[in-house]
């Protein structure tokens, strides 16, 4: 376990306590992001350069999806590769060529770094450059790291999107201001947001990532970026480096979060408040109606979040403000103070936020608090259930459409279901 660093107790200035913790972490690595990213970018392929462990992890995370001709695979490093680096680059080229021959429909190939490839310092950016030249113009090759030593779970998406940013077309300084929504969203959610922005009169709205490699949006000094996901620190920085401006906003979870998120864009583009109200009113009304029944179930419930995806803060804000739940502890693997400021401002005073993890200590706190609902990973869920605690496994929150007005009810239902189930079971 990591040595405990002296822990500074910071106050975000809004009554929220932020504490850092180091030790054993029960989290996924960034490779896991591939499982949903490959479904979003439909002509991209993700080739992990790693060990059998990496292949085994993706297989465990992808479950049955592995057989629907998925667009990801692992180039497993073996003993021969470890003998010499030059040989390894040739091996990588050979594997890549074989892959592209088998999948001629691929337009964008990501070489994804892993712990083993990072530790032996295999130069994947250079490999990507080399392969890009030899496979051009049919296939572009990019690289990013999804290793556990550098990324936690959703940070894999951040690394992937950040790798895309330098490749995006440039818009001129005098171009019409445009809105760029950043973060992979379910197609259904993306379409809903596109309609809402259109009703507000925003004409230039793009999404990153796009659904196809050849259709990635342009970026420039007149681009305003709105983060749809809370884990996009590097991507936002890369976009800002290209002149784009980030619009601070809470994340579009729940009715309140969605409205505030949309309003950040509306304000930036000078949308008339009345028009904004008209555009959002039907969605807001539907969200309110959908959320109503769950308030009785979730109101007053004491909730404990283990760190997983960085979605914990916005989810906790939704549960406490819109559902009336009480927050015991909100764990997050990483906390970007800037991006999270609007969320922190909305959390109730006294909320305990813990960045990082020391697993056994955190489990002790959870057991002592005996929460009504614990949000945690699949490694912990059944053991905690066996101890009598109701759990909600957190990975589902990444695979299920939860953003926007029309998913607000579904989001509440995800938390309510384990509680309802407990009342039904009589044995």
């Amino acid at each position: 376990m990591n040595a405990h660093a002296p822990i500074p107790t910071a106050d975000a200035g809004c009554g929220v306590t932020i504490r850092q913790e180091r030790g054993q972490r029960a989290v996924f690595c960034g490779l896991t992001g591939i499982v949903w990213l490959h479904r979003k970018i439909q002509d991209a392929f993700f080739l992990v350069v790693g060990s059998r462990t990496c292949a085994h992890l993706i297989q465990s995370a992808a479950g049955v999806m592995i057989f629907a001709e998925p667009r990801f695979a692992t180039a497993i490093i073996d003993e021969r590769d470890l003998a010499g680096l030059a040989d390894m680059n040739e091996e990588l080229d050979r594997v890549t060529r074989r892959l592209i021959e088998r999948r001629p429909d691929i337009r964008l190939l990501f070489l994804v770094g892993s712990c083993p490839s990072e530790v032996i310092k295999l130069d994947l950016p250079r490999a990507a450059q080399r392969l890009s030249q030899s496979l051009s113009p049919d296939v572009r090759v990019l690289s990013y790291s999804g290793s556990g030593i550098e990324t936690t779970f959703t940070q894999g998406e951040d690394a992937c999107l950040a790798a895309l940013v330098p490749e995006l077309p440039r818009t001129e300084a005098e171009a019409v201001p445009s809105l760029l929504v950043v973060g992979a969203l379910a197609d259904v959610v993306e379409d809903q947001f596109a309609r809402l922005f259109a009703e507000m009169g925003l004409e230039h709205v793009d999404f990153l990532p796009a659904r196809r490699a050849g259709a990635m949006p342009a970026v420039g000094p007149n681009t305003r970026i709105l983060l749809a996901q809370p884990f996009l620190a590097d991507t936002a920085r890369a976009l800002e480096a290209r002149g784009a401006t980030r619009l601070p906003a809470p994340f579009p979870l729940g009715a309140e979060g969605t409205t505030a998120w949309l309003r950040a864009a509306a304000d930036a583009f000078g949308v008339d408040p009345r028009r904004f109200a008209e555009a959002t009113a039907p969605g807001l009304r539907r969200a309110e109606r959908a959320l109503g029944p769950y308030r009785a179930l979730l109101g007053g419930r004491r909730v404990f979040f283990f760190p997983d995806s960085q979605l914990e803060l916005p989810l906790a804000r939704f549960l406490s403000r819109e559902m009336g739940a009480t927050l015991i502890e909100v764990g997050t693997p990483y906390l970007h103070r800037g991006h999270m400021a609007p969320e922190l401002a909305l959390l109730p005073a006294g909320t305990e936020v813990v960045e990082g993890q020391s697993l056994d200590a955190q489990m002790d706190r959870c057991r002592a608090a005996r929460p009504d609902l614990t949000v945690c990973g699949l490694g912990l869920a059944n053991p905690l259930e066996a101890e009598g605690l109701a759990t909600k496994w957190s990975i589902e929150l990444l695979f299920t459409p939860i953003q926007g007005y029309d998913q607000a009810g579904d989001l509440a239902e995800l938390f309510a279901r384990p509680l309802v189930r407990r009342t039904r079971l009589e044995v």
Partner: protein
Amino acid sequence: MQLTLWTYEGPPHIGAMRVATAMRGLHYVLHAPQGDTYADLLFTMIERRDARPPVTYTTFQARDLGADTAAIFQNAVSEAYARFQPEAMIVGASCTAELIQDDPGGLARALDLPIPVIPLELPAYQKKENWGASETFYRLVRALAGPKAEPAPRAGRRPLCNILGPTALGFRHRDDLVEIEKLLGALGIDVNVVAPRGASPADLGRLSAADFNVVLYPEIARAAAQHLQKTFGQPLVETVPIGVGATIRFVEEVAALANVDPAPVLAGAPSRLPWYSRSVDSTYLTGKRVFIFGDATHALAIARVAAAELGFKVVGLGTYTREFAREVRAEAALHGIEATITDDYLDVEAAIQAAQAELVLGTQMERHIAKRLGVPCAVISAPIHVQDFPARHSPQMGFEGANVLFDTLVHPLMMGLEEHLLGMFREDAEFHDGAAPSHLTRHGTAPSVPEAPEPAAPVIDTPPQTSAPDDAPAAWEASAEKELKKIPFFVRGKARANTERFARERALSRITVETLYDAKAHFGR
């Protein structure tokens, strides 16, 4: 580098986890980067365990690389010892930690803990999960099994044996163990220690008290049992009691070692499989073409059951366990085929297609392959998904295991009567090709009507081609095409392929009704 989409086995440290999780009072400290804890969910979700595996990970991150990963490791060992108070510990590295070359064994030794701490060397870039389990169990037994207990004189006491091999995340290990303990009990043999499943390090210290060892899963326990044989002179039984014949052999071998009479256990009809297999409904199973793939233990055992106890024809046999390739090749030779030794599922898929199997017995992967090919399938080996850790008692071993096997292997095929009816009434509304299974018919929808039997004459009556290239498929005459439609749909594809192959080999340019039946006679089994 090997391009991999699916892997049959995890890395070797997963094998070590399977041993540690199976045991009590043992803790595993694994030097591993953040993220490797994904392995926990194999145990908590797939096997539905109610506690976290007894594994502490160092979960180092990039900022820790440098001097202090060794300190992190030592910290993890001390804290795990203080918190869990295990009787013994195993320590080792996952693939990434192997590269950074901290020495878990040496670092742990330096802490001088008052319990045995056993270092594991698991070369992650050469070896895999089953090897890791075998090596871990062997190291544990080597470190903890001595010294030789003075055996009580055999006169006046019941024979005593150890059962070796069942682990966590093992395919049906839980229920196999129940069956084997029942058999041994019926023979009047006592069980000294079951390991690794359920054993503590102290239990491993008592291994030498037994008269002999029963090895249930050779790929996990052979190395340990051979060590016990060498060190304590304990003989071992390695016959895997899967199937009726193998169970009888197992009982006889165990009885001989224990010097007891096997007759009472074998008397009567201890399994229903032999009668079920002889009953007339099973006649249609004769010569069914079956492809078998899995770990070596199960592939070998199931091949014998399939051929000798169910009357199938084994048209494919293979394993991903390279350590047992020789034995699987020898078994395949007995069936007149060549074994498929591979860990690439695409090779397995190609072999299944080439063998024209009518039933696939394999792992979770073969289940998906068979689904894609439209071939019936049953799961007989790990890797498996959550549904193959069933709530109900479902052993593979022993006489009850044979009952389970009969049901499991036969159910994916249509029952004999059902198959017969389908053949007889294939033109009827209920049985035509497009009809959904009766239990799936939705209320309120009109039953679909079979297509008019007369096809809208596709280009069939073309004049014979004079200069057709050798590999061009011969044209089907309308009458032959119509005759083909009368063959049950589930073998029609095969009939078409065989007939076309027959025509191609004989350079026939047209396929007539005669050709169809000539081909049938030629390829008939």
